[in-house]
């Protein structure tokens, strides 16, 4: 378009606005007439007119005018806090009674990882594990107290806490029981349940070490209790090493306040470590010389080995990966022989940064290197991609990630040989999908 024309049109608009008061009277007078004229000519019959213009063969989605193109959309006053399109309503967290302690107050809602793109989980889809329901805390009545083996105990309002210099980091949070129901056998015909006890977001908050600088941590302080203010008053013991390395108190999740499901107004963030350690609805940090032995670090979140001894204080979630496309929810049943298709997935490691991912088409007998794509960050979801020419025959598709700490995902057999099948937590054996000859995808385990 010619620029001069645009400018002159703008002028017209301006002068129109100046004349508005005068013109309003005119509009009023003619309103009745123009409304009926409009109604007759266009509002009632746009679809018909268009349909008459474009007969013929083809996709009605192209040939016919659609209601959204021929009427107003919602005014900007609608949904001032935006919501996803109603057509995306099946993209949602899901629950099952078998993953709850008696009722839905101590349970988990899992993330639809097959529907996510990139490495960020939208806040409404972030998985939610809680032990006494999702607390709805009044921001104004919430406090953070830091005490115990510090020279100067401290209490902060949320506004005061947010005055500290902030940092933003992208990290996954994974429940260490992700994949845990499948130690003995595959159980879920679904990626959402088999691997969806995790999500990844950009978190904003403060380093705990920055707050501690002024409080004078006593030399005998070795452990920190973090405690939530919700129904469960859940506590967990964190070693001082992590507190002084990269532990954060976060209030921001993907640019907005934490969702109540994520511990609004604040939660603990320990990059890469068990989700359960990242106490939500955080209210209290206490420093001590001995560990605290809370229920969720003894009764639960401990991994029993065949020796009868259980691993306690099992901190980092080890290197792991899963193919998200195809998967049971997103099969290849629409593919034709010869189609070139992307195998895509997620890799992550609580111990560091993903170095690479291998793909196997024969259940882990032979491997080829996949590409990483997008951002590759420490303790964050990392996307991988592998281009495959579909041959219409059955496959066992597996992925195997490795990290910069030198760890490589073990096979199911290696993992079972090492730690048995009763660990419940920290299962990171190679995940395999069986793709049948007609493109259906099934959850299997390769025991070779």
């Amino acid at each position, binding site marked *: 378009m010619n620029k001069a024309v645009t400018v002159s049109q703008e002028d017209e608009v301006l002068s129109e606005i100046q004349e508005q008061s005068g013109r309003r009277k005119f509009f009023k007078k003619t309103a009745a007439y123009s409304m009926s004229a409009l109604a007759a000519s266009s509002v009632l019959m746009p679809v018909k007119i268009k349909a008459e213009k474009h007969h013929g063969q083809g996709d009605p989605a192209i040939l016919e005018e659609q209601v959204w193109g021929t009427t107003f959309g919602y005014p900007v006053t609608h949904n001032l806090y935006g919501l996803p399109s109603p057509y995306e309503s099946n993209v949602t967290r*899901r629950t099952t009674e078998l993953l709850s*302690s*008696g009722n839905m*107050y101590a349970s988990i809602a899992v993330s639809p990882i097959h529907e996510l793109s990139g490495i960020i989980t939208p806040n409404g889809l972030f998985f939610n594990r809680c*032990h*006494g329901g999702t607390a709805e805390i009044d921001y104004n009545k919430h406090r953070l*107290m830091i005490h115990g083996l510090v020279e100067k*105990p*401290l209490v902060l*309002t949320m506004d005061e806490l947010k005055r500290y*210099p902030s*940092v*933003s980091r992208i990290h996954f949070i994974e429940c260490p029981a992700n994949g845990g129901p499948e130690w*003995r*056998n*595959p159980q879920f*015909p679904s990626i*959402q*349940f088999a691997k969806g006890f995790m999500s990844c977001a950009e978190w904003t908050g403060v380093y705990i070490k*920055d707050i501690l600088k002024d409080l004078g941590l006593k030399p005998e302080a*070795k452990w920190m209790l973090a405690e939530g203010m919700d129904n*469960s*008053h*859940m506590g967990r013991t964190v*070693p001082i*090493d992590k507190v002084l*390395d*990269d532990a954060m108190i976060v209030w921001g999740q993907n640019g907005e306040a934490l969702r109540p499901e994520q511990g609004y107004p604040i939660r603990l963030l320990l990059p*890469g*470590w068990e989700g359960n350690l990242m106490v939500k609805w955080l209210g209290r940090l206490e420093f*001590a010389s*001995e560990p605290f*032995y*809370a229920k969720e670090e*003894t*009764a639960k979140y401990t991994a*029993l080995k*065949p020796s*009868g001894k*259980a*691993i*306690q*204080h099992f*901190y980092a979630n080890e290197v792991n990966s899963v193919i998200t496309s195809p998967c049971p*929810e997103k099969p290849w049943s629409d593919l034709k022989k010869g189609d070139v298709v992307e195998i895509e997935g997620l890799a992550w490691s609580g*111990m560091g*940064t993903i170095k690479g991912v*291998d793909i196997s088409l024969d259940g*882990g007998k032979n491997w080829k290197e996949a590409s990483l794509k997008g951002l590759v960050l420490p303790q964050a979801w990392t996307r991988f991609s592998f281009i495959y020419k579909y041959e219409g025959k059955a496959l066992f598709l597996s992925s195997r990630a490795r*990290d910069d*700490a030198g760890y*490589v995902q073990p096979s199911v057999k290696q*993992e079972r040989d090492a730690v048995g*099948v009763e660990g419940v937590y*920290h299962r990171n054996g190679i995940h395999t999908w*069986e793709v049948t000859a007609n493109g259906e995808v099934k*959850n299997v*385990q390769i*025991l*070779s």
Partner: protein
Amino acid sequence: MFKSYHKLLVATTLFAMLGTSVVCAADKTVSRTYENGKKVIDGGMTYPVYKGKTASYYMNEKAHGGAVNFGRKPTLDEIKAWDIDVMPDGTGLPEGEGSVEEGDEIYEAKCASCHFDFGSGGSGYPALQQGNAYEGQKTLTNQRINPDDDGPQRNFGSYWPQASTLWWYIQTGMPHPAPMSLSDDETYALVAYTLSINEIQIDGEELDDEYVLNREKFLKIVMPNKDGFEPKIDGPNGLENARKYYDNPKNFGGNKERCMKNCFDGDPVVARIQGVGISEYSPPISIKREKPMPKEGSKAEHPGKKAYTASCAVCHTTDAMGAPAVGDKQAWEAALKKGLDKVKHNAIYGINGMPPKGGTTLSDDKVSEIVDYMIEASK
């Protein structure tokens, strides 16, 4: 043969050495040790600040110098009010007492509706005992390799290393619908009862009905599985033990091998889901892009509904616990034969498995409003 083999070996060692030294010298952005020279405690990596960045993130180093200070010192009463944890050495454990028999009564009133008689658990609710704890502890080496193998018993008595955890958890987490509502003496009584149903002895003594537990006796409890956990985190070497433990991949099943070709013999051995597996999900799985149907005739919400959902629905959603289920017309008609006042009285003061006010501290009026809602929703 020997010679060339020798050469090969030397070559690979040299290469390996070169490889590591090159990585160490060049890459200051990632490290196995913290600034203080200690290995990273979880066996992984840390990302020191190097040239104004940590990993890929730029940072304002001046912002982290400790000059920013906000907040105030809490009062001693404030600390006392919030310092609710109980540690194995008795830190945080108040004085008080309660007998097994008293515990039994409180248990019946406030716990049995979920944890069932004698803490046997069920319907998803955890069991608080599975018989003699000392015997149960011996099952911890069990592995369910075959479908009918017995699993390890992981309940309080057989598994938990410390009794302090139970005291702390019961007082601050239970009863589930109304935590922080038990007195110290009630908690002692419930702990005594839980110990007795697990047949745990204190100082060689069994806990019969008359046994009165107090702080002094509590601190003598030695749990059967006290030594069942690794790494050892107690005492002055706790942190170093954890560090050493995670430095050795063998301890937790870490793998460093990356096989690329012919990684196993023959065809893969495949384990498949048995039957339909666990496939009852809410909502059911669908990847269709469809607009949900509008909810039919949405009326204004009853004022009692929210509190009902929060405090009563756990027991009243179904009749599994003997409670009249909301929506069950007959059950409520039967209950109302006593008259509305009596029904409300029972809701406020409790009856059989119905704890007073459902175990909450709601006002009488609020409970009455909830009962109105329950009746309304069951017509």
